[in-house]
């Protein structure tokens, strides 16, 4: 049933925007919904010209996908109210669902819709949150994600991330056997994938600017690894690092003015900081024997975590953005790389090697405790959701690269299935302001 429903939505979204349907991801929850909170999402009422998006279905799917909520099956909904006056709270209490979402969509003209929603606490018969919007037809899906964010935040007290986006790289083998690479951006549910860069050469390490307006990434289009910055709205792109040797692993500073990146122009991979406005470079690491790469910024903007094999094997270190002595952070396991930091700065996720296999692990930076969250042994490249609840990562299924997500407590697992394309290098966008 769920699969069929997802397929239907998927098909619908492709019909709406067929020219964008390049590599649709389908999100499947693969485990861990036992403790989910029941919620009643009543299909929204419709007035006038039918909306091209099923708003309540998008909201319901978002909530279910988070693993935190269990929307009641449609056949269990005892009535179909669309506003407070139509709700008999006594009836709804029997369903043991604490939250009740109702709403309606009315067409203002062919292009514009008015959407209203109300979330009720069933036991106290009280409205928790309710709003009305007017949006163009093309904005309906995004609005649905924003409403889901508000419901999530109201009921859990944490920021919702349904209206964020994902960036990832796809690789397709053409009939001639040659690979074609694409950098894509989709909604957080995998819908509306949009190719922002295509290349015959590999693309790596996408990373979002803090305002979500730009991406930086590594492209081999000139025969070697070089760093680019691309503006999402205009498609305008600039080469920002094309020095001799490697130019790679770019990471945006929290204030958006600088990139930390790896350059080997000195003859060895070192971490540098590039000031975007001036092009001024400052060198952070000075260990000419070791690989130093994959810098990420601590939320304070003053320190970096990075991968280094200065101790013999790759491990994670912390260093001041001004340079100076680096301090080792990861101690468990023979291989730790690709760090990412939760927005509160308390958790680090990384690719954790154990007996030749690779898992996604999370380390409490305050206590040092490490928890391994995944199982396949071919997991890599973790990226925190901007609320720190979920970690998106790359894994393999039947020899093909796919994306998956796991909650930071390891309880909720999702797989982002995809239609025949190799998918890798995920990066979760920041929350749109």
């Amino acid at each position, binding site marked *: 049933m769920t699969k*069929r429903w997802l*397929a*239907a939505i998927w*098909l619908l979204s*492709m019909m709406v925007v*067929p*020219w*964008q*349907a*390049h*590599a*649709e991801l389908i999100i499947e929850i693969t485990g861990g919904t036992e403790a989910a909170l029941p919620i009643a999402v009543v299909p929204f009422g419709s007035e006038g010209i039918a909306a091209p998006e099923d708003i309540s279905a998008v909201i319901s799917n978002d909530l279910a996908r988070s693993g935190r909520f269990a929307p009641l099956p449609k056949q269990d909904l005892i009535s179909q109210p669309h506003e407070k006056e139509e709700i008999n709270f006594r009836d709804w209490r029997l369903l043991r669902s604490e939250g009740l979402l109702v709403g309606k969509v009315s067409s203002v003209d062919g292009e514009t819709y008015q959407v209203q929603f109300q979330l009720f606490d069933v036991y106290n018969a009280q409205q928790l949150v309710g709003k009305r919007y007017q949006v163009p037809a093309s904005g309906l899906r995004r609005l649905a994600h924003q409403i889901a964010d508000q419901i999530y935040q109201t009921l859990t007290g944490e920021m919702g991330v349904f209206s964020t986006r994902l960036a990832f790289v796809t690789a397709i083998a053409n009939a001639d056997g*040659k690979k074609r690479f*694409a950098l894509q951006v989709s909604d957080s549910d995998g819908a509306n994938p949009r*190719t*922002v*860069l*295509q*290349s*015959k*050469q*590999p693309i*790596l*390490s996408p990373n979002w600017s803090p305002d979500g307006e730009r991406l930086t990434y*590594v492209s*081999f*289009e*000139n*025969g*070697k*690894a070089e760093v680019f910055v*691309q503006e999402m709205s205009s498609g305008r*792109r600039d080469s920002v690092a094309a020095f001799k*040797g*490697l130019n*790679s*692993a770019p990471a945006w500073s929290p204030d958006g003015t600088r990139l930390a990146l*790896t350059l*080997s122009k000195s*003859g060895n*991979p070192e971490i540098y900081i590039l000031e975007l406005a001036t092009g001024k470079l400052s060198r952070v690491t000075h260990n000419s024997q070791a*690989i130093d*790469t*994959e810098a990420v910024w601590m939320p304070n903007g003053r320190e970096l975590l990075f*991968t280094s*094999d200065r101790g013999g*094997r*790759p491990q994670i270190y912390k260093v001041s953005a001004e340079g100076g002595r680096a301090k080792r952070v990861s101690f468990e396991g023979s291989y730790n*790389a*690709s760090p990412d930091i939760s927005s509160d700065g308390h958790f680090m996720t990384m*690719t954790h090697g154990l007996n*030749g296999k*690779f898992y996604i692990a999370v380390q409490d930076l305050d206590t040092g405790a490490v928890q391994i969250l995944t199982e396949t042994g*071919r997991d*890599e*490249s973790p990226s925190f959701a901007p609320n720190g609840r979920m970690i998106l990562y790359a894994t393999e299924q039947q*020899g093909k690269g796919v994306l998956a997500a796991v909650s930071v407590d390891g309880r909720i697992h999702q797989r982002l299935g995809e*239609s*025949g394309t190799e998918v*890798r290098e995920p990066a979760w966008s920041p929350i749109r302001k």
Partner: protein
Amino acid sequence: MKLFKLSVVLFILMWLSACTTLGLGKKDTDAATDGAEVAVEDRSADSASIGGDNASGDAETTVIVGEDQYQGDELNDPASPLSNRVVYFEYDSSAVRQEDQTTLAAHAAYMGEHQNVTMRLIGHTDERGSREYNLALGERRAMAIRQILMLHGADIKQFQVTSFGEERPQAEGHDESAWQQNRRVELIYVGQ
């Protein structure tokens, strides 16, 4: 389920028609043709002379292997250690194996005698672990080869070093037999 299958078919059709028109950066990247992935530098007249055509009459490049006399540039002699253009590595290692020393010494000697020759060293890794770390590891492997070639008489100016990390596997599999073919440095004479 039928709907699901139908949508897959639909998707593929749409994708096929869509992929010719997609991509903001298409214009830029199309310039990087397959040939350009080896960003060959302008060849000087000098380096062109190492080609077989010009070299056949040059006594210095005639090699005698066993009883066969190979007439031509020794670079093109299949029996010469110079015909070996790939060096393989152990997992997460850039240490050059003993058995590759002869090959490398021969290349170094050739380069030392032909100072106008340039070589591109392209480092690669297997797919395991971090892509960015592997990019750096591929470069380190290429640098290790360059170091040995320089110790045996080649000059630093004769090299271009590049790494593709795990992005260009020679074998597509996901097991040790594929991995060991992928942990390699390719030695490419520019212009050959």
